[in-house]
């Protein structure tokens, strides 16, 4: 596991970081598209977004520091105050809240002695934790859900949540219930900047709830209809060509619907 690149001795950004910021901007047809991952990279290096980091992005992208700051303040994952070794998120959107997320969040605030968006004080021999209630993290079938450094911790209880944060503080190795060994917040921010950390093959492909429907279908012999590939009637390409022959009428319909139909989706 590679550590996040170091800062220079005076606390400034290293040449290596500048090189990576340029590298990120170069992934896109227009450099400014790199801003979100560039800010993730800065968080991995400095533990937050600093005024110096904002200036660096502004210089590289040729925009004002105010424009960069406007972006930093818009997105909740960017932190202007130092984040602890572990960012612990508790989902308190309605479904998780009802299923126990509210009770978990209350218990953790009390147990850690901090409020929302606060960090436990630096204590020798202990890792620090930043606690935050988060919005729906797309794991509702595993409610109540917590996130540690944006890795899933599924089906939590107040009891398992307090044990989890105690283990984190003691520096024990923790595995996500649907993911890898949990890295530090800074290491994870580097992945979000587009630099893989080698943990991709850890953890399962899917958790138990993701497989419930598939399991029932297999048990009962339910499948999608047989395809032409399995039958005698021809290859998929033939089917698509046949489908293409019906194009004229559908195109005419398209044009009439063009004005009325545009929506998200």
């Amino acid at each position, binding site marked *: 596991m590679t550590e996040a690149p170091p800062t220079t001795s005076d606390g400034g950004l290293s040449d290596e970081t500048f090189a990576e910021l340029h590298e990120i901007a170069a992934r*896109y*047809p*227009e450099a400014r598209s*790199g801003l*979100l*991952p560039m800010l993730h990279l800065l968080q991995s290096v400095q533990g937050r977004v600093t005024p110096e980091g904002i200036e660096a992005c502004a210089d590289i*992208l040729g925009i004002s520091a105010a424009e960069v700051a406007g*972006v930093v303040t*818009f*997105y909740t994952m*960017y932190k202007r105050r130092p984040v602890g070794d572990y960012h612990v998120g508790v989902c308190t*959107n*309605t479904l998780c809240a*009802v299923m126990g997320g*509210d*009770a978990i969040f209350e218990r953790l605030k009390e147990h850690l002695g901090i409020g929302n968006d606060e960090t436990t004080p630096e204590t020798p021999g202990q890792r620090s934790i930043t606690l935050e209630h988060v*919005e729906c993290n*797309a*794991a*509702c079938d595993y*409610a109540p859900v917590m996130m540690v450094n944006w890795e*899933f911790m599924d089906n939590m*209880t107040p009891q398992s949540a307090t044990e989890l944060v105690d283990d984190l503080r003691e520096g024990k190795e923790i595995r*996500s219930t649907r993911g890898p060994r949990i890295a530090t917040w800074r290491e994870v921010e580097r*992945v979000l900047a*587009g630099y893989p950390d080698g*943990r*991709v*093959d850890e*953890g399962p*492909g*899917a958790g*138990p*709830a*993701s497989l*419930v*429907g*598939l399991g*029932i*279908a297999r048990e*009962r012999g*339910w499948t*999608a*209809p047989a*395809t*032409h590939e399995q039958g005698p009637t021809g290859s*998929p*390409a033939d*089917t*698509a*060509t046949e*489908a*293409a022959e*019906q194009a004229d009428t*559908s*195109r005419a319909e*398209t044009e009439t619907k063009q004005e009325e139909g*545009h929506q*998200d*989706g």
Partner: protein
Amino acid sequence: MADTLTPVLTADWADEQSWKLATYERNGGYRALRTALRMAPDDIITAVKDSGLRGRGGAGFPTGMKWGFIPQDNPNPKYLVVNADESEPGTCKDIPLMMASPHTLVEGVVISSFAIRANRAFIYIRGEVVHVVRRVQAAVAEAYAAGHLGRNIHGSGYDLDVVVHAGAGAYICGEETALLEGLEGRRGQPRLRPPFPAVAGLYASPTVINNVESIASVPSIVGNGAEWFASMGTEKSKGFGIFSLSGHVANPGQYEAPLGVTLRTLIDLAGGVRHGHELKFWTPGGSSTPILTAEHLDVPLDFEAVAGAGSMLGTRALQIFDETTCVVRSVLRWTEFYKHESCGKCTPCREGTYWLVQVLTKLENGTGQEKDLGVLLDQCDNILGRAFCALGDGATSPITSSIEYFRDEYLQHLTNGGCPFDPVASTLFAAEGAR
């Protein structure tokens, strides 16, 4: 008549190392890509149109038609952008799909980009799911190494580059024009339309933006044919979709079924509502779709029938709440979410969601008055249809629908001088006394 469950996208999720290219190819992966590369791009668009596939991100706009809007005579580059910013409360299908089978998405990206003649594609994944980001990054790298991406793909002369882009925490970036702003390195605030993204999207160039599940469905359509896809589902809502059951059911999880399946069938498959309890209310497609009740258990879950029942199919995010759940508390929490996530660009949404929270808080803690219900409905009336994008509209859905079905419960809070529900009773660990 198709089977009750029809695993296609979810079919290989239980395989050993399901996310690896070798596993995906062993299961027939990237064969549809080779088929597609031998087709004329317009014929792929036609096949997707004929399949009847409608956007799986919530709005249900026909995918092939969206592709057909791209002006091919426009001299600018064309772009495909995948909306993987899954954040609608209750929605939890794209995240497990990308974690278990990222190559299904990547293959869909290549075929779809080829169809619309894009040489660049972007997968915009919300940042708060780092393991999913890892899996998609690795799948893209594997696809490059295998020649499924890059220069002259499989000798076709077609080039495609894909960038995996992590967001940074903003529900609004699920709105397609706000997503484009985020992808351009700006605050994620929606754009005025027209011009639509098909004409002036990313970098003011023709752009298709599709949901993960929509794009992931494309290989199966190209591989098996439009008729095969259309043989599932209902008259105007064709094909299969992932239905996500969460909350107070015995076995929450992902159930892939033809559109038109009912909640009664799905809850039955899920082992019923939590033992000893009964269904109180549910969302058909996330918190932005008006809530429904037990009287809607037999509504076919397709675009038309759910709309007929006064709600929206949305993302098939079926959040199930039993009788221990306070509807006022639930709606207040969703409203706080909309207030937090309002991008601030337009007044009805920015100010309106603020005031909705004020009034709902008083109602939940019993300090409001009956006339506050009228105030709430009036506020909703001033947001719905007047906000810049669908976020404001969505914020009103849980409020107006809950007052329609549970007006008495709101009033009960007032006569009771506070919430009459024990929050412990609704938790997963209620039996253990919320330890």
